[in-house]
Protein backbone atom coordinates (compact mmCIF):
# COMPACT_ATOMS: atom_id res chain seq x y z
CA UNK A 1 0.00 0.00 0.00
CA UNK A 2 2.66 2.49 1.09
CA UNK A 3 4.91 1.58 -1.83
CA UNK A 4 2.04 1.99 -4.27
CA UNK A 5 1.37 5.42 -2.90
CA UNK A 6 4.98 6.47 -3.33
CA UNK A 7 5.32 5.00 -6.81
CA UNK A 8 2.14 6.79 -7.95
CA UNK A 9 2.68 10.04 -6.07
CA UNK A 10 1.37 12.04 -9.04
CA UNK A 11 -2.01 10.35 -8.88
CA UNK A 12 -2.04 10.66 -5.09
CA UNK A 13 -1.44 14.42 -5.38
CA UNK A 14 -4.21 14.65 -7.99
CA UNK A 15 -6.67 12.93 -5.66
CA UNK A 16 -5.64 15.16 -2.74
CA UNK A 17 -6.17 18.25 -4.88
CA UNK A 18 -9.53 16.88 -6.01
CA UNK A 19 -10.53 16.50 -2.38
CA UNK A 20 -9.41 20.02 -1.53
CA UNK A 21 -11.26 21.51 -4.47
CA UNK A 22 -14.38 19.47 -3.79
CA UNK A 23 -14.46 20.48 -0.12
CA UNK A 24 -13.99 24.14 -1.01
CA UNK A 25 -16.74 24.09 -3.61
CA UNK A 26 -19.06 22.41 -1.14
CA UNK A 27 -18.25 24.15 2.14
CA UNK A 28 -17.04 27.70 1.45
CA UNK A 29 -19.59 30.43 1.95
CA UNK A 30 -17.79 32.91 -0.25
CA UNK A 31 -18.76 32.48 -3.88
CA UNK A 32 -15.35 33.46 -5.23
CA UNK A 33 -13.68 30.86 -3.02
CA UNK A 34 -16.22 28.32 -4.23
CA UNK A 35 -15.26 29.09 -7.82
CA UNK A 36 -11.57 28.72 -6.94
CA UNK A 37 -12.45 25.35 -5.40
CA UNK A 38 -14.21 24.38 -8.62
CA UNK A 39 -11.11 25.22 -10.64
CA UNK A 40 -8.81 23.32 -8.30
CA UNK A 41 -11.10 20.30 -8.53
CA UNK A 42 -11.23 20.36 -12.32
CA UNK A 43 -7.48 20.91 -12.64
CA UNK A 44 -6.87 17.94 -10.36
CA UNK A 45 -8.84 15.75 -12.74
CA UNK A 46 -6.85 17.06 -15.71
CA UNK A 47 -3.61 16.37 -13.85
CA UNK A 48 -4.81 12.82 -13.23
CA UNK A 49 -5.73 12.36 -16.90
CA UNK A 50 -2.49 13.84 -18.17
CA UNK A 51 -0.51 11.52 -15.88
CA UNK A 52 -2.47 8.56 -17.18
CA UNK A 53 -1.67 9.45 -20.78
CA UNK A 54 2.04 10.05 -20.22
CA UNK A 55 4.44 7.22 -21.01
CA UNK A 56 7.93 7.69 -19.62
CA UNK A 57 10.60 8.46 -22.23
CA UNK A 58 8.23 9.27 -25.09
CA UNK A 59 7.44 12.58 -26.75
CA UNK A 60 4.21 14.46 -27.37
CA UNK A 61 2.11 13.09 -30.23
CA UNK A 62 3.09 15.58 -32.95
CA UNK A 63 4.67 13.89 -35.93
CA UNK A 64 8.16 15.27 -36.63
CA UNK A 65 10.34 14.21 -39.59
CA UNK A 66 7.62 11.84 -40.81
CA UNK A 67 8.27 9.36 -37.99
CA UNK A 68 5.07 7.28 -37.87
CA UNK A 69 6.33 4.78 -35.30
CA UNK A 70 3.68 4.71 -32.56
CA UNK A 71 6.25 3.62 -29.98
CA UNK A 72 7.78 7.09 -30.12
CA UNK A 73 4.74 9.00 -28.88
CA UNK A 74 2.59 9.17 -25.76
CA UNK A 75 -1.13 8.30 -25.76
CA UNK A 76 -2.91 11.28 -27.38
CA UNK A 77 -6.44 10.46 -26.18
CA UNK A 78 -6.11 11.76 -22.58
CA UNK A 79 -4.58 14.99 -23.88
CA UNK A 80 -7.62 15.40 -26.10
CA UNK A 81 -9.90 14.75 -23.16
CA UNK A 82 -8.03 17.32 -21.06
CA UNK A 83 -8.47 19.95 -23.78
CA UNK A 84 -12.21 19.21 -24.01
CA UNK A 85 -12.47 19.30 -20.24
CA UNK A 86 -10.71 22.66 -20.06
CA UNK A 87 -13.19 24.13 -22.53
CA UNK A 88 -16.09 22.87 -20.43
CA UNK A 89 -14.57 24.13 -17.20
CA UNK A 90 -13.84 27.58 -18.67
CA UNK A 91 -17.45 28.01 -19.75
CA UNK A 92 -18.79 26.80 -16.42
CA UNK A 93 -16.45 29.15 -14.55
CA UNK A 94 -17.56 32.06 -16.73
CA UNK A 95 -21.19 31.29 -15.97
CA UNK A 96 -20.52 31.05 -12.23
CA UNK A 97 -18.61 34.33 -12.26
CA UNK A 98 -21.41 36.08 -14.10
CA UNK A 99 -23.91 34.76 -11.57
CA UNK A 100 -21.66 36.04 -8.78
CA UNK A 101 -21.53 39.50 -10.39
CA UNK A 102 -25.32 39.55 -10.67
CA UNK A 103 -25.70 38.62 -7.01
CA UNK A 104 -23.07 41.14 -5.93
CA UNK A 105 -24.76 43.96 -7.83
CA UNK A 106 -28.05 43.16 -6.19
CA UNK A 107 -26.98 42.36 -2.63
CA UNK A 108 -23.46 43.85 -2.30
CA UNK A 109 -22.00 40.68 -0.85
CA UNK A 110 -20.55 37.44 -2.20
CA UNK A 111 -21.46 35.44 0.90
CA UNK A 112 -24.16 32.94 -0.03
CA UNK A 113 -25.54 32.70 3.51
CA UNK A 114 -25.90 36.46 3.82
CA UNK A 115 -27.66 36.53 0.48
CA UNK A 116 -30.09 33.89 1.74
CA UNK A 117 -30.81 36.04 4.82
CA UNK A 118 -31.34 39.14 2.67
CA UNK A 119 -33.69 37.19 0.42
CA UNK A 120 -35.73 36.09 3.40
CA UNK A 121 -35.98 39.72 4.51
CA UNK A 122 -37.17 40.70 1.04
CA UNK A 123 -39.86 38.11 1.64
CA UNK A 124 -40.74 37.37 -1.93
Amino acid at each position, binding site marked *: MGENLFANYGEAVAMLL*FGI*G*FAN*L*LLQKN*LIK*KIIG*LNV*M*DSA*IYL*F*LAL*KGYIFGRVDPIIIDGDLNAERYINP*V*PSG*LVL*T*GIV*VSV*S*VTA*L*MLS*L*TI*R*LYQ*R*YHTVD*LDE*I*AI*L*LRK*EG*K
Partner: protein
Amino acid sequence: MDIICNFPCISIVMCILGGIVSSALKGRAAKYLNAVLLVCVTVMSACVFGYTMMTGDSFTYVMGRFPAPWGNELRAGVLEGGMALFFCTIMMLCLFGGQEKLREEVEPQKLNLYYILCDLLLSSLLSLVYTNDMFTAYVFIEINTISACGLIMISQTGRTIEAATRYMIMSLLGSGMILLSICMLYDMTGHLLMENIHETLTASVTAGHFHVPLMITIGMICVGIAIKSALFPFHTWLPDAYGYSTVSSAAILSSLVSKGYIFLLIKVIYRVIGFDVIYASRVTDILFVFGLAGMIMGSLSAIKENDIFRMTAFSSVAQIGYIYMGFGLGTQAAMVASIFHILSHAVTKALLFLSASGLADVSGGSRHFIDLTGSAYRNKMAGVAFGAGALSMVGIPLFSGFISKLLFAEAAVRNSGKMLPALIVLAVSTILNAIYFMKTVIRIYTPAQSEQASVPVKKQKLFAAATVCLIALNVFLGLCSDWVVDLIGTGLGMFV
Protein backbone atom coordinates in the same frame (compact mmCIF):
# COMPACT_ATOMS: atom_id res chain seq x y z
CA MET B 1 -34.98 2.69 -44.62
CA ASP B 2 -31.28 3.06 -43.90
CA ILE B 3 -31.68 6.80 -43.79
CA ILE B 4 -33.44 6.39 -40.43
CA CYS B 5 -30.10 5.29 -38.94
CA ASN B 6 -28.91 8.87 -39.48
CA PHE B 7 -31.84 10.41 -37.61
CA PRO B 8 -30.35 10.36 -34.08
CA CYS B 9 -27.31 12.28 -35.27
CA ILE B 10 -29.33 14.64 -37.46
CA SER B 11 -31.74 15.47 -34.65
CA ILE B 12 -28.90 16.32 -32.22
CA VAL B 13 -27.07 18.46 -34.78
CA MET B 14 -30.30 20.18 -35.81
CA CYS B 15 -31.01 21.22 -32.22
CA ILE B 16 -27.52 22.64 -31.72
CA LEU B 17 -27.70 24.52 -35.03
CA GLY B 18 -31.17 25.76 -34.11
CA GLY B 19 -29.74 27.17 -30.91
CA ILE B 20 -26.97 28.96 -32.77
CA VAL B 21 -29.31 30.38 -35.41
CA SER B 22 -31.78 31.53 -32.74
CA SER B 23 -29.14 33.78 -31.23
CA ALA B 24 -29.44 35.99 -34.32
CA LEU B 25 -33.24 35.95 -34.40
CA LYS B 26 -35.92 38.00 -32.68
CA GLY B 27 -38.01 36.42 -29.94
CA ARG B 28 -40.98 35.48 -32.13
CA ALA B 29 -38.86 33.98 -34.90
CA ALA B 30 -36.87 32.00 -32.35
CA LYS B 31 -40.14 30.68 -30.94
CA TYR B 32 -41.32 29.48 -34.33
CA LEU B 33 -37.94 27.96 -35.11
CA ASN B 34 -38.07 26.14 -31.79
CA ALA B 35 -41.57 24.84 -32.52
CA VAL B 36 -40.53 23.63 -35.98
CA LEU B 37 -37.45 21.97 -34.50
CA LEU B 38 -39.48 20.24 -31.82
CA VAL B 39 -41.94 18.88 -34.38
CA CYS B 40 -39.12 17.69 -36.67
CA VAL B 41 -37.25 16.00 -33.84
CA THR B 42 -40.44 14.39 -32.56
CA VAL B 43 -41.15 12.97 -36.02
CA MET B 44 -37.57 11.74 -36.37
CA SER B 45 -37.61 10.13 -32.92
CA ALA B 46 -40.91 8.46 -33.81
CA CYS B 47 -39.25 7.10 -36.97
CA VAL B 48 -36.32 5.75 -34.95
CA PHE B 49 -38.74 4.23 -32.46
CA GLY B 50 -40.84 2.62 -35.19
CA TYR B 51 -37.78 1.41 -37.09
CA THR B 52 -36.24 -0.32 -34.06
CA MET B 53 -39.61 -1.86 -33.19
CA MET B 54 -39.94 -3.17 -36.74
CA THR B 55 -36.45 -4.62 -37.01
CA GLY B 56 -36.52 -5.80 -33.40
CA ASP B 57 -32.89 -4.84 -32.98
CA SER B 58 -30.83 -1.80 -32.04
CA PHE B 59 -28.51 -0.03 -34.46
CA THR B 60 -25.25 1.84 -34.01
CA TYR B 61 -24.38 5.01 -35.88
CA VAL B 62 -20.64 5.46 -36.31
CA MET B 63 -19.67 9.14 -36.36
CA GLY B 64 -17.34 9.96 -39.22
CA ARG B 65 -16.93 6.24 -39.99
CA PHE B 66 -14.07 5.75 -37.53
CA PRO B 67 -14.44 2.12 -36.41
CA ALA B 68 -15.26 0.98 -32.87
CA PRO B 69 -12.38 1.41 -30.42
CA TRP B 70 -11.42 4.86 -31.74
CA GLY B 71 -14.48 6.62 -33.09
CA ASN B 72 -17.54 8.10 -31.45
CA GLU B 73 -20.86 6.30 -31.68
CA LEU B 74 -24.56 6.81 -31.21
CA ARG B 75 -26.79 3.88 -30.50
CA ALA B 76 -30.54 3.56 -30.69
CA GLY B 77 -32.87 0.81 -29.59
CA VAL B 78 -36.53 0.70 -28.67
CA LEU B 79 -35.94 2.27 -25.27
CA GLU B 80 -33.73 5.07 -26.61
CA GLY B 81 -36.12 5.85 -29.47
CA GLY B 82 -39.10 5.76 -27.14
CA MET B 83 -37.41 7.99 -24.56
CA ALA B 84 -36.38 10.53 -27.20
CA LEU B 85 -39.93 10.61 -28.56
CA PHE B 86 -41.31 10.99 -25.04
CA PHE B 87 -38.88 13.76 -24.05
CA CYS B 88 -39.67 15.77 -27.19
CA THR B 89 -43.41 15.41 -26.67
CA ILE B 90 -43.27 16.50 -23.04
CA MET B 91 -40.99 19.42 -23.87
CA MET B 92 -43.36 20.58 -26.59
CA LEU B 93 -46.35 20.41 -24.24
CA CYS B 94 -44.48 22.23 -21.44
CA LEU B 95 -43.42 25.03 -23.76
CA PHE B 96 -46.84 25.46 -25.38
CA GLY B 97 -48.60 25.30 -22.04
CA GLY B 98 -46.37 27.88 -20.41
CA GLN B 99 -46.10 30.25 -23.36
CA GLU B 100 -48.56 32.86 -22.15
CA LYS B 101 -46.87 32.97 -18.76
CA LEU B 102 -43.48 33.21 -20.41
CA ARG B 103 -44.55 36.31 -22.32
CA GLU B 104 -45.42 38.01 -19.01
CA GLU B 105 -42.31 37.03 -17.09
CA VAL B 106 -39.50 37.33 -19.61
CA GLU B 107 -38.43 40.62 -21.15
CA PRO B 108 -39.32 40.59 -24.88
CA GLN B 109 -35.75 41.23 -26.04
CA LYS B 110 -34.57 38.25 -24.02
CA LEU B 111 -37.18 35.83 -25.31
CA ASN B 112 -34.91 34.42 -27.99
CA LEU B 113 -32.38 33.52 -25.26
CA TYR B 114 -35.02 31.30 -23.67
CA TYR B 115 -35.49 29.39 -26.89
CA ILE B 116 -31.73 29.05 -27.42
CA LEU B 117 -31.54 27.41 -24.01
CA CYS B 118 -34.48 25.13 -24.85
CA ASP B 119 -32.84 24.04 -28.12
CA LEU B 120 -29.55 23.31 -26.39
CA LEU B 121 -31.32 21.49 -23.57
CA LEU B 122 -33.14 19.30 -26.07
CA SER B 123 -29.91 18.52 -27.90
CA SER B 124 -28.19 17.53 -24.69
CA LEU B 125 -31.12 15.38 -23.59
CA LEU B 126 -31.13 13.60 -26.94
CA SER B 127 -27.38 13.05 -26.71
CA LEU B 128 -27.66 11.64 -23.21
CA VAL B 129 -30.28 9.26 -24.51
CA TYR B 130 -28.47 8.18 -27.67
CA THR B 131 -24.75 8.40 -26.92
CA ASN B 132 -22.58 5.33 -26.71
CA ASP B 133 -19.48 7.16 -25.50
CA MET B 134 -18.83 8.07 -21.88
CA PHE B 135 -16.90 11.27 -22.49
CA THR B 136 -19.52 12.58 -24.90
CA ALA B 137 -22.01 11.86 -22.15
CA TYR B 138 -19.96 14.03 -19.76
CA VAL B 139 -19.78 16.94 -22.20
CA PHE B 140 -23.51 16.87 -22.78
CA ILE B 141 -24.16 16.57 -19.04
CA GLU B 142 -22.41 19.93 -18.69
CA ILE B 143 -24.35 21.45 -21.58
CA ASN B 144 -27.51 20.20 -19.93
CA THR B 145 -26.50 21.79 -16.62
CA ILE B 146 -25.63 25.14 -18.16
CA SER B 147 -28.84 25.39 -20.16
CA ALA B 148 -30.91 24.26 -17.17
CA CYS B 149 -29.25 27.00 -15.10
CA GLY B 150 -30.24 29.52 -17.77
CA LEU B 151 -33.82 28.27 -17.74
CA ILE B 152 -33.99 28.75 -13.96
CA MET B 153 -32.73 32.33 -13.99
CA ILE B 154 -34.48 33.60 -17.10
CA SER B 155 -36.92 35.72 -15.11
CA GLN B 156 -34.02 37.53 -13.36
CA THR B 157 -35.29 38.08 -9.85
CA GLY B 158 -33.03 37.80 -6.81
CA ARG B 159 -34.63 34.49 -5.90
CA THR B 160 -34.05 32.86 -9.26
CA ILE B 161 -30.43 34.03 -9.49
CA GLU B 162 -29.73 32.62 -6.04
CA ALA B 163 -31.54 29.39 -6.89
CA ALA B 164 -29.53 29.11 -10.11
CA THR B 165 -26.28 29.64 -8.19
CA ARG B 166 -27.15 26.91 -5.72
CA TYR B 167 -28.19 24.63 -8.55
CA MET B 168 -24.90 25.24 -10.35
CA ILE B 169 -22.83 24.54 -7.23
CA MET B 170 -24.50 21.22 -6.51
CA SER B 171 -24.47 20.23 -10.18
CA LEU B 172 -20.78 21.04 -10.52
CA LEU B 173 -19.97 18.83 -7.53
CA GLY B 174 -21.90 16.06 -9.27
CA SER B 175 -20.26 16.53 -12.64
CA GLY B 176 -16.80 16.65 -11.04
CA MET B 177 -17.44 13.24 -9.55
CA ILE B 178 -18.83 11.89 -12.81
CA LEU B 179 -15.79 13.18 -14.73
CA LEU B 180 -13.37 11.62 -12.27
CA SER B 181 -15.15 8.29 -12.44
CA ILE B 182 -15.11 8.37 -16.25
CA CYS B 183 -11.36 9.07 -16.10
CA MET B 184 -10.90 6.11 -13.77
CA LEU B 185 -12.92 3.89 -16.10
CA TYR B 186 -10.68 5.00 -18.96
CA ASP B 187 -7.65 4.33 -16.80
CA MET B 188 -8.79 0.79 -15.98
CA THR B 189 -9.97 -0.20 -19.44
CA GLY B 190 -8.34 2.10 -21.97
CA HIS B 191 -11.68 2.70 -23.68
CA LEU B 192 -14.41 5.31 -23.75
CA LEU B 193 -17.07 3.48 -25.76
CA MET B 194 -19.61 1.72 -23.57
CA GLU B 195 -19.35 -1.71 -25.17
CA ASN B 196 -15.54 -1.77 -25.09
CA ILE B 197 -15.46 -0.66 -21.46
CA HIS B 198 -17.97 -3.36 -20.61
CA GLU B 199 -15.98 -6.11 -22.35
CA THR B 200 -12.68 -5.16 -20.73
CA LEU B 201 -14.25 -4.68 -17.31
CA THR B 202 -15.99 -8.06 -17.43
CA ALA B 203 -12.66 -9.69 -18.26
CA SER B 204 -10.83 -7.97 -15.42
CA VAL B 205 -13.63 -8.65 -12.91
CA THR B 206 -13.51 -12.36 -13.77
CA ALA B 207 -9.73 -12.29 -13.38
CA GLY B 208 -10.17 -10.55 -10.01
CA HIS B 209 -8.35 -7.33 -10.93
CA PHE B 210 -9.25 -3.75 -10.02
CA HIS B 211 -11.65 -4.55 -7.21
CA VAL B 212 -11.10 -1.36 -5.17
CA PRO B 213 -10.91 1.15 -8.05
CA LEU B 214 -14.03 -0.35 -9.58
CA MET B 215 -15.96 0.02 -6.32
CA ILE B 216 -14.83 3.65 -6.03
CA THR B 217 -15.81 4.30 -9.63
CA ILE B 218 -19.26 2.80 -9.21
CA GLY B 219 -19.78 4.77 -6.01
CA MET B 220 -18.66 8.06 -7.54
CA ILE B 221 -20.75 7.75 -10.67
CA CYS B 222 -23.86 6.79 -8.69
CA VAL B 223 -23.41 9.63 -6.20
CA GLY B 224 -22.60 12.10 -8.98
CA ILE B 225 -25.77 11.31 -10.88
CA ALA B 226 -27.76 11.19 -7.63
CA ILE B 227 -26.64 14.75 -6.81
CA LYS B 228 -27.60 15.96 -10.25
CA SER B 229 -31.00 14.31 -10.19
CA ALA B 230 -31.74 15.44 -6.59
CA LEU B 231 -31.88 12.20 -4.65
CA PHE B 232 -32.86 12.84 -1.02
CA PRO B 233 -29.85 14.17 0.92
CA PHE B 234 -28.72 16.19 -2.13
CA HIS B 235 -32.10 17.77 -2.86
CA THR B 236 -31.51 21.13 -1.16
CA TRP B 237 -31.18 23.04 -4.43
CA LEU B 238 -34.39 21.66 -5.86
CA PRO B 239 -37.31 23.49 -4.19
CA ASP B 240 -35.98 26.96 -4.96
CA ALA B 241 -34.91 26.06 -8.47
CA TYR B 242 -38.28 24.57 -9.39
CA GLY B 243 -40.38 26.78 -7.15
CA TYR B 244 -39.38 30.24 -8.35
CA SER B 245 -38.52 29.78 -12.03
CA THR B 246 -41.07 30.47 -14.74
CA VAL B 247 -43.60 27.70 -15.18
CA SER B 248 -42.30 26.16 -18.44
CA SER B 249 -38.85 25.97 -16.88
CA ALA B 250 -40.14 24.32 -13.73
CA ALA B 251 -42.10 21.77 -15.77
CA ILE B 252 -39.18 21.04 -18.10
CA LEU B 253 -36.66 20.83 -15.24
CA SER B 254 -38.68 18.51 -13.09
CA SER B 255 -39.97 16.25 -15.81
CA LEU B 256 -37.01 16.10 -18.20
CA VAL B 257 -33.66 17.34 -16.91
CA SER B 258 -33.37 15.05 -13.90
CA LYS B 259 -34.76 12.18 -15.98
CA GLY B 260 -32.04 12.57 -18.58
CA TYR B 261 -29.41 11.92 -15.91
CA ILE B 262 -31.33 8.97 -14.54
CA PHE B 263 -31.54 7.48 -18.00
CA LEU B 264 -27.77 7.83 -18.27
CA LEU B 265 -27.42 5.98 -14.96
CA ILE B 266 -29.55 3.15 -16.35
CA LYS B 267 -27.24 2.97 -19.37
CA VAL B 268 -24.21 2.92 -17.08
CA ILE B 269 -25.74 0.12 -15.03
CA TYR B 270 -26.59 -2.05 -18.01
CA ARG B 271 -24.14 -1.18 -20.73
CA VAL B 272 -20.97 0.07 -19.04
CA ILE B 273 -20.42 -1.69 -15.75
CA GLY B 274 -22.90 -4.52 -16.02
CA PHE B 275 -26.01 -5.34 -14.04
CA ASP B 276 -24.42 -8.14 -12.01
CA VAL B 277 -21.25 -6.24 -11.10
CA ILE B 278 -23.26 -3.24 -9.89
CA TYR B 279 -25.46 -5.40 -7.72
CA ALA B 280 -22.55 -7.43 -6.39
CA SER B 281 -20.94 -4.14 -5.32
CA ARG B 282 -23.93 -3.39 -3.03
CA VAL B 283 -23.77 0.30 -3.93
CA THR B 284 -27.40 -0.08 -4.97
CA ASP B 285 -28.30 -0.95 -1.37
CA ILE B 286 -27.23 2.56 -0.45
CA LEU B 287 -29.32 3.98 -3.28
CA PHE B 288 -32.22 1.88 -1.95
CA VAL B 289 -31.91 3.34 1.57
CA PHE B 290 -31.66 6.93 0.32
CA GLY B 291 -34.51 6.30 -2.10
CA LEU B 292 -36.72 5.18 0.79
CA ALA B 293 -35.61 8.14 2.92
CA GLY B 294 -36.38 10.49 0.03
CA MET B 295 -39.88 9.06 -0.39
CA ILE B 296 -40.71 9.90 3.23
CA MET B 297 -38.73 13.12 3.72
CA GLY B 298 -39.83 14.65 0.40
CA SER B 299 -43.46 14.07 1.26
CA LEU B 300 -43.06 15.39 4.82
CA SER B 301 -41.46 18.59 3.53
CA ALA B 302 -44.24 18.92 0.98
CA ILE B 303 -46.86 18.68 3.74
CA LYS B 304 -45.21 21.50 5.67
CA GLU B 305 -45.03 23.76 2.62
CA ASN B 306 -47.39 26.68 2.22
CA ASP B 307 -46.61 27.50 -1.37
CA ILE B 308 -48.15 25.41 -4.13
CA PHE B 309 -45.07 25.50 -6.37
CA ARG B 310 -42.66 24.54 -3.63
CA MET B 311 -45.00 21.79 -2.52
CA THR B 312 -45.03 20.34 -6.03
CA ALA B 313 -41.25 20.68 -6.12
CA PHE B 314 -40.84 18.75 -2.86
CA SER B 315 -43.15 16.09 -4.25
CA SER B 316 -40.53 15.65 -7.00
CA VAL B 317 -37.98 14.73 -4.31
CA ALA B 318 -40.31 11.94 -3.17
CA GLN B 319 -40.86 10.71 -6.73
CA ILE B 320 -37.12 10.65 -7.49
CA GLY B 321 -36.88 8.54 -4.32
CA TYR B 322 -39.30 6.01 -5.88
CA ILE B 323 -37.12 5.73 -8.97
CA TYR B 324 -33.96 5.12 -6.96
CA MET B 325 -35.78 2.63 -4.77
CA GLY B 326 -36.50 0.69 -7.96
CA PHE B 327 -32.79 0.68 -8.81
CA GLY B 328 -32.03 -0.50 -5.31
CA LEU B 329 -34.39 -3.46 -5.47
CA GLY B 330 -32.04 -4.95 -8.02
CA THR B 331 -34.32 -6.98 -10.24
CA GLN B 332 -35.31 -6.58 -13.85
CA ALA B 333 -38.94 -6.06 -12.83
CA ALA B 334 -37.97 -3.23 -10.47
CA MET B 335 -35.93 -1.59 -13.23
CA VAL B 336 -38.94 -1.72 -15.54
CA ALA B 337 -41.02 -0.17 -12.75
CA SER B 338 -38.46 2.63 -12.35
CA ILE B 339 -38.45 3.40 -16.06
CA PHE B 340 -42.23 3.39 -16.11
CA HIS B 341 -42.18 5.78 -13.18
CA ILE B 342 -39.83 8.10 -15.10
CA LEU B 343 -42.53 8.34 -17.80
CA SER B 344 -45.38 8.59 -15.37
CA HIS B 345 -43.74 11.23 -13.20
CA ALA B 346 -42.71 13.32 -16.20
CA VAL B 347 -46.28 13.42 -17.51
CA THR B 348 -47.82 14.13 -14.12
CA LYS B 349 -45.35 16.71 -12.85
CA ALA B 350 -45.53 18.74 -16.05
CA LEU B 351 -49.31 18.75 -15.69
CA LEU B 352 -49.13 19.79 -12.02
CA PHE B 353 -46.74 22.68 -12.61
CA LEU B 354 -48.73 24.00 -15.58
CA SER B 355 -52.03 23.82 -13.75
CA ALA B 356 -50.56 25.29 -10.55
CA SER B 357 -49.49 28.34 -12.52
CA GLY B 358 -52.97 28.58 -14.00
CA LEU B 359 -54.42 28.52 -10.48
CA ALA B 360 -51.97 31.11 -9.18
CA ASP B 361 -52.78 33.45 -12.08
CA VAL B 362 -56.45 33.68 -11.11
CA SER B 363 -55.55 34.24 -7.44
CA GLY B 364 -53.86 37.55 -7.94
CA GLY B 365 -50.52 35.89 -8.71
CA SER B 366 -50.23 34.55 -5.17
CA ARG B 367 -49.02 31.00 -4.69
CA HIS B 368 -50.05 30.65 -1.06
CA PHE B 369 -52.79 28.23 -0.15
CA ILE B 370 -54.95 30.84 1.58
CA ASP B 371 -55.25 32.87 -1.61
CA LEU B 372 -55.82 29.80 -3.73
CA THR B 373 -59.14 29.00 -2.04
CA GLY B 374 -61.75 28.46 -4.72
CA SER B 375 -59.36 29.10 -7.57
CA ALA B 376 -60.54 25.97 -9.39
CA TYR B 377 -63.86 27.71 -9.99
CA ARG B 378 -62.11 30.71 -11.42
CA ASN B 379 -59.98 28.69 -13.83
CA LYS B 380 -61.88 25.48 -14.54
CA MET B 381 -59.32 23.94 -16.87
CA ALA B 382 -56.45 24.37 -14.41
CA GLY B 383 -58.60 23.01 -11.59
CA VAL B 384 -59.47 19.84 -13.50
CA ALA B 385 -55.85 19.43 -14.59
CA PHE B 386 -54.51 19.84 -11.06
CA GLY B 387 -57.11 17.37 -9.79
CA ALA B 388 -56.10 14.80 -12.42
CA GLY B 389 -52.41 15.27 -11.66
CA ALA B 390 -53.01 14.94 -7.94
CA LEU B 391 -55.04 11.75 -8.41
CA SER B 392 -52.28 10.29 -10.54
CA MET B 393 -49.60 11.20 -7.98
CA VAL B 394 -51.58 9.59 -5.19
CA GLY B 395 -52.07 6.47 -7.28
CA ILE B 396 -55.74 6.24 -8.17
CA PRO B 397 -56.49 3.56 -10.82
CA LEU B 398 -57.00 4.78 -14.40
CA PHE B 399 -54.00 7.12 -14.04
CA SER B 400 -50.36 6.26 -14.65
CA GLY B 401 -49.31 6.78 -11.02
CA PHE B 402 -51.34 3.74 -10.00
CA ILE B 403 -49.55 1.50 -12.47
CA SER B 404 -46.09 2.58 -11.34
CA LYS B 405 -46.98 1.99 -7.69
CA LEU B 406 -48.40 -1.41 -8.63
CA LEU B 407 -45.23 -2.31 -10.55
CA PHE B 408 -43.04 -1.21 -7.64
CA ALA B 409 -45.08 -3.28 -5.20
CA GLU B 410 -44.94 -6.35 -7.46
CA ALA B 411 -41.19 -5.97 -7.85
CA ALA B 412 -40.74 -5.54 -4.09
CA VAL B 413 -42.69 -8.72 -3.33
CA ARG B 414 -40.34 -10.71 -5.54
CA ASN B 415 -37.27 -9.48 -3.63
CA SER B 416 -37.44 -11.30 -0.31
CA GLY B 417 -34.75 -9.29 1.50
CA LYS B 418 -36.07 -5.83 0.76
CA MET B 419 -39.78 -6.60 0.52
CA LEU B 420 -40.82 -5.41 3.95
CA PRO B 421 -39.12 -1.97 4.04
CA ALA B 422 -40.07 -1.27 0.43
CA LEU B 423 -43.74 -2.12 0.91
CA ILE B 424 -44.06 -0.27 4.22
CA VAL B 425 -42.44 2.88 2.87
CA LEU B 426 -44.49 2.64 -0.32
CA ALA B 427 -47.67 2.56 1.74
CA VAL B 428 -46.62 5.36 4.10
CA SER B 429 -45.46 7.53 1.21
CA THR B 430 -48.77 6.99 -0.61
CA ILE B 431 -50.67 8.14 2.45
CA LEU B 432 -48.45 11.20 2.82
CA ASN B 433 -48.93 11.97 -0.90
CA ALA B 434 -52.66 11.72 -0.40
CA ILE B 435 -52.51 14.10 2.58
CA TYR B 436 -50.87 16.99 0.79
CA PHE B 437 -52.40 16.56 -2.64
CA MET B 438 -55.92 16.03 -1.40
CA LYS B 439 -55.49 18.96 0.98
CA THR B 440 -54.65 21.13 -2.01
CA VAL B 441 -57.44 19.79 -4.19
CA ILE B 442 -60.00 20.35 -1.42
CA ARG B 443 -58.59 23.84 -0.91
CA ILE B 444 -58.91 24.86 -4.54
CA TYR B 445 -62.45 23.46 -4.75
CA THR B 446 -63.65 25.18 -1.57
CA PRO B 447 -65.74 28.20 -2.63
CA ALA B 448 -64.07 31.44 -1.56
CA GLN B 449 -65.95 33.52 0.97
CA SER B 450 -64.75 36.96 -0.02
CA GLU B 451 -65.79 38.64 -3.24
CA GLN B 452 -62.27 38.98 -4.66
CA ALA B 453 -62.98 35.74 -6.47
CA SER B 454 -64.22 36.88 -9.87
CA VAL B 455 -61.06 37.33 -11.89
CA PRO B 456 -61.93 36.86 -15.55
CA VAL B 457 -60.38 33.76 -17.07
CA LYS B 458 -58.45 34.73 -20.15
CA LYS B 459 -58.70 32.80 -23.35
CA GLN B 460 -56.03 30.21 -22.92
CA LYS B 461 -56.25 27.93 -25.91
CA LEU B 462 -52.64 26.74 -25.84
CA PHE B 463 -52.71 26.15 -22.10
CA ALA B 464 -55.94 24.18 -22.34
CA ALA B 465 -54.68 22.12 -25.28
CA ALA B 466 -51.42 21.29 -23.50
CA THR B 467 -53.14 20.23 -20.29
CA VAL B 468 -55.70 18.13 -22.18
CA CYS B 469 -52.83 16.38 -24.02
CA LEU B 470 -50.99 15.75 -20.77
CA ILE B 471 -54.10 14.32 -19.09
CA ALA B 472 -54.71 12.14 -22.14
CA LEU B 473 -51.10 10.92 -22.08
CA ASN B 474 -51.45 10.21 -18.37
CA VAL B 475 -54.61 8.16 -18.88
CA PHE B 476 -53.02 6.43 -21.87
CA LEU B 477 -50.07 5.35 -19.72
CA GLY B 478 -52.54 4.17 -17.10
CA LEU B 479 -54.72 2.18 -19.48
CA CYS B 480 -52.21 0.78 -21.98
CA SER B 481 -49.62 -0.01 -19.34
CA ASP B 482 -49.16 -3.62 -20.53
CA TRP B 483 -48.00 -2.45 -23.93
CA VAL B 484 -45.66 0.16 -22.43
CA VAL B 485 -44.21 -2.30 -19.90
CA ASP B 486 -43.60 -4.85 -22.67
CA LEU B 487 -41.82 -2.19 -24.70
CA ILE B 488 -39.61 -1.21 -21.75
CA GLY B 489 -38.77 -4.88 -21.24
CA THR B 490 -37.84 -5.27 -24.92
CA GLY B 491 -35.78 -2.09 -24.75
CA LEU B 492 -33.87 -3.28 -21.71
CA GLY B 493 -33.26 -6.59 -23.49
CA MET B 494 -31.61 -4.66 -26.33
CA PHE B 495 -29.27 -2.95 -23.87
CA VAL B 496 -27.24 -6.04 -23.19
